């Protein structure tokens, strides 16, 4: 029984994928990806919802009922209900028409976390109860609800199930509304050109293990940065007794208070985080460990470089460097098994 069900399901799934592929192709032509999208008659689809079909059933039932009792008023009521369905179509369309969507940068996440893609919704005419979801996601996703959308943009986060590391394209965003009577479902699939790089899940490990061998005496310092004079690092509150040479006079003149310019200098040689895919076992674990190391080194503000196969990122530090490294790790080719071939 269960087996039969499964084959049925699989068959349906296969049909679905076939159909979906064609459909997506058509959609790409009709509604190309864009960060700003305003819904119009080109992009809004309307069909009766399940409730709308039941409603129509009631219309027929009442018509028969009125016919059998030869009661024109019952027939009239059934016709009125049918007419309400017609009115509802226009209202449903109006609810979504003119809705503006703009995708916003998503927060960085690690693999295994739930993703959420923010977008800004606004509408000149106002829209009620707009539901947003990513229908092509693998696994269970929640619908996000924008109860009321007006001229001022509202931010809506649409969740997406956790994915493995790498570049994630959530697919088309489904915008749905049953307003005002639930009789019609107005919907649209828009591609807001949303993309996110999901970083590998960090796994705690020892940093030094993969560091490039170096004979330097100060190896222990591993690129740690200490206060120095070489590199401008930033501003900090002035503490009495600090050298007046380093006071940021310009900022003082601007009325920002007394601040001190901080300088740093690297201590010892930078760390090299390396991974050789051909030699490593537990490839994914390694990647995860490297992720953790990158985060750790970033937190302690150390200089480090990354070298994986033929990708090399020169030692550096800072937010940008961290992103570059994590991105490189995320986008490493995936292997199915534990060991790459």
């Amino acid at each position, binding site marked *: 029984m269960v087996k039969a069900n499964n084959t049925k399901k699989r068959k349906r799934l296969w049909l679905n994928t076939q159909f979906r592929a064609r459909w997506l192709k058509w959609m790409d032509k009709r509604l190309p990806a864009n960060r700003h999208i305003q819904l119009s008659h080109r992009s809004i689809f309307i069909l009766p919802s399940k409730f709308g079909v039941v409603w129509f059933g009631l219309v027929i039932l009442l018509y028969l009922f009125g016919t059998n009792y030869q009661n024109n008023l019952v027939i009239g*009521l059934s016709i009125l209900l049918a007419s*309400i369905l017609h009115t509802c179509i226009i209202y449903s369309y109006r609810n979504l028409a003119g809705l503006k969507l703009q995708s916003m940068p998503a927060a960085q996440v690690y693999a295994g976390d739930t993703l959420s893609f923010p977008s800004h919704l606004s509408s000149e005419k106002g829209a009620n109860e707009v539901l947003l979801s990513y229908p092509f996601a693998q696994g269970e*996703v929640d619908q996000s609800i924008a109860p009321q959308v007006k001229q001022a943009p509202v931010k809506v986060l649409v969740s997406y199930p956790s994915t493995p590391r790498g570049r994630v394209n959530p697919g088309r965003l489904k915008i749905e509304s049953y307003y005002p009577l639930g009789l019609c479902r107005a919907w649209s699939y828009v591609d807001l050109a949303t993309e996110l790089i999901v970083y590998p899940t960090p796994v705690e490990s020892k940093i030094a293990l993969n560091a490039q061998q170096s004979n330097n005496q100060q190896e222990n310092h591993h690129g740690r940065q200490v206060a120095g004079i070489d590199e401008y690092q930033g501003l900090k509150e002035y503490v009495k007794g600090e050298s007046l040479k380093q006071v940021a006079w310009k900022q003082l003149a601007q009325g920002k208070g007394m601040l001190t310019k901080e300088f740093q200098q690297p201590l010892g040689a930078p760390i090299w985080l390396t991974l050789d895919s051909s030699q490593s076992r537990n490839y994914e674990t390694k990647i995860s460990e490297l992720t953790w190391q990158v985060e750790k080194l970033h937190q302690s503000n150390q200089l480090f470089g990354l070298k994986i196969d033929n990708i090399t990122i020169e030692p550096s530090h800072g937010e940008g460097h961290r992103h570059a490294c994590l991105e490189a790790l995320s986008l490493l080719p995936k292997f199915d098994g534990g060991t790459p071939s």
Partner: protein
Amino acid sequence: MISNQIEQIISRNTLLWLLITNVAIISPLYDKLTLWTGGICAICFIWRIGIYFGRVSKPPRYLVTLLAVSAAGTLALVTSSIGALSALVNLLILGYALKYIECTNRRDVRAIVLVGYFLIALTFIYNQSIWNTIHLLVICGINTCVLVSLYQEKVTLKSTYKLAFTMVAQSLPLALVLFLVLPRLPPLWLVPDMKSAVTGLSDTLNFGDIGRLSRSDKLAFRATFDEDVPTNAELYWRALILDTYDGSTWDRNQIIKDIEKNAFVMQPDRGNPVGKTINYTVIAEPTHQNWLYGLDQAFSQTDDIYNLPDYRIYSLRAVDQKVQYRVKSAPNQAMDKSLHPRIKEINLSLPDDSNPKAKLFAQDMREKYPSPVDRLSAFMRYFRDNPFYYTLEPPRVGPQQIDDFLFTNKAGYCAHYASSLVFIARASGIPARMVTGYQGGEYNPKAGYVSVYQYMAHAWVEVWLKGQGWIRLDPTGMIAPERVNEGFDAIFEGEESYLRDSIFSGLQLKQFPLLNELRLTLSSIDYYWSVWVLGFDNDKQEQVLQDLIGKVDSSKLIALMLVSLSLVGIAISYSVGLFHFPSRQEPINRLYVRILNALAKKGIHKPQGIGPNDFVEQVYKLAPDLAPDFERFTQNYIALKYQNLPSTAAQKCWHVYRKQASKLRTAIFRLRSVDSDKSNT
């Protein structure tokens, strides 16, 4: 996979609307509820109020199940006594109430709304007056509010009902068109009849029965005549023929009862009447009985009507709601020139041991007047010459009813006179029978119809004479001729029993001309409603469509439907603001640019990045004659464009602006060209 947590959200607004709609939908059906159903509805409603105010939580499952089972059980027991339709109503209301108390998600709410619409439809079965329809239309709107409130968040009650009622109102025009166009089918299968107390005439007659009707001002039926309305004295609406008498009750004979029972399968044995006919349409009010009303020898070709051999018409289904039918009557054509022996026997038979005095009296008369015609006129004279009088409150009669009436009391109303006459006619050997129905009718000159009320119920006599067939005799006419000639109202002016049961009835208003006028107008509205809405059938449909689009064919109908569908759609779309018409902003700019272009032609160029006000200063330098006008024009331009003027002020300003523009243009046209170099400095 998308999880539907939105389905779980029911706003507080919705809960409140559910409370309102519950009362609104159930209250019009209050008299159809059994005690049990009513009780459970009340419990559910009170519980719901409790839930709304947070006093109680959802009732436990077992309690709801218990209530449902016990209520359904009792309902099953009483189904036979209240009728299938009433049972259906009760069952639906029960489901409605119980689902209502249980509802936890949107699906439940939607189910409640759908059942609500069905209950509204059921209410229409019971009452179809125009006022009731308006009332139910409002309830329809309230029911729609529940749905609207489901999909609106954080809104006031007002905005919800505004939207719901707007939607219902916007749906009405299309509904009207569809009502006109959609086909009217005959009933597809037999439906359970309403088991309601019958109203109007009863199918048997006792002394005293018609007196009860005489106190009711309820409408019995209305009739519209194609030609002139016959006089009041001609309006004898036959409904029943009672020819079996057991000493106290008059009833129909078994033969006709069998025919009525089998009318569904029987072939009518009566054809179209020939000769001069009176044609009219009758709209009968519901009686929950089958017989219909017709004058004299009535014949109808309306569906589901059977023409009985005794020249009455009979509806195949009980008149549970207003019915409209066409009748052809032939007043001058003889009914039953020859009488079947079996029928003759029935119409001569009397119970053996009843009313000996009356029988004796009849025998005497027979000897005195051997000719039946003479004898009958002697009988009629007897009523006139003896001190009989007409009253709705006759003295009591003993077991020998007719003896007591004829020789002791000498007071009574139509039923007494008619049954006495039938009795003595039969006793003297003339076939006779009692006819009950209505006599007279109130003519409404505005809408041109005759209204017949229950208090116009009447009983009279038909006697069979050789060569003439059945002849109508009305002994009441001998005692109270006004009753027949001028109508019932004439003789009962001021008498207490007349309409005693309805002191506040509209008919009491007859004495006040203005109010009577109003009463007639309301009655006309009701009449038109009956004819054009309740009685809108295939014939009327064809008639209306022919007036609208000429010869009716399917392609024209489809075109009409499509056109109205899109017209209504466009109208609604426009009303909800879907079309963006170019705002006034456009022409404002256009005019300004046109003036600038005209100035440029004369060599006065507006440099890029300079405001309109600054440009005015330049114009002052280059064309001082023109400048004041241009300044005023610019001021208006700025006002229209940047100040948020109220609409009337904007309108005014726009007019001035346009005038200034045309004035400026002629002024610029006359202007001498300015050196273009100068303008750029």
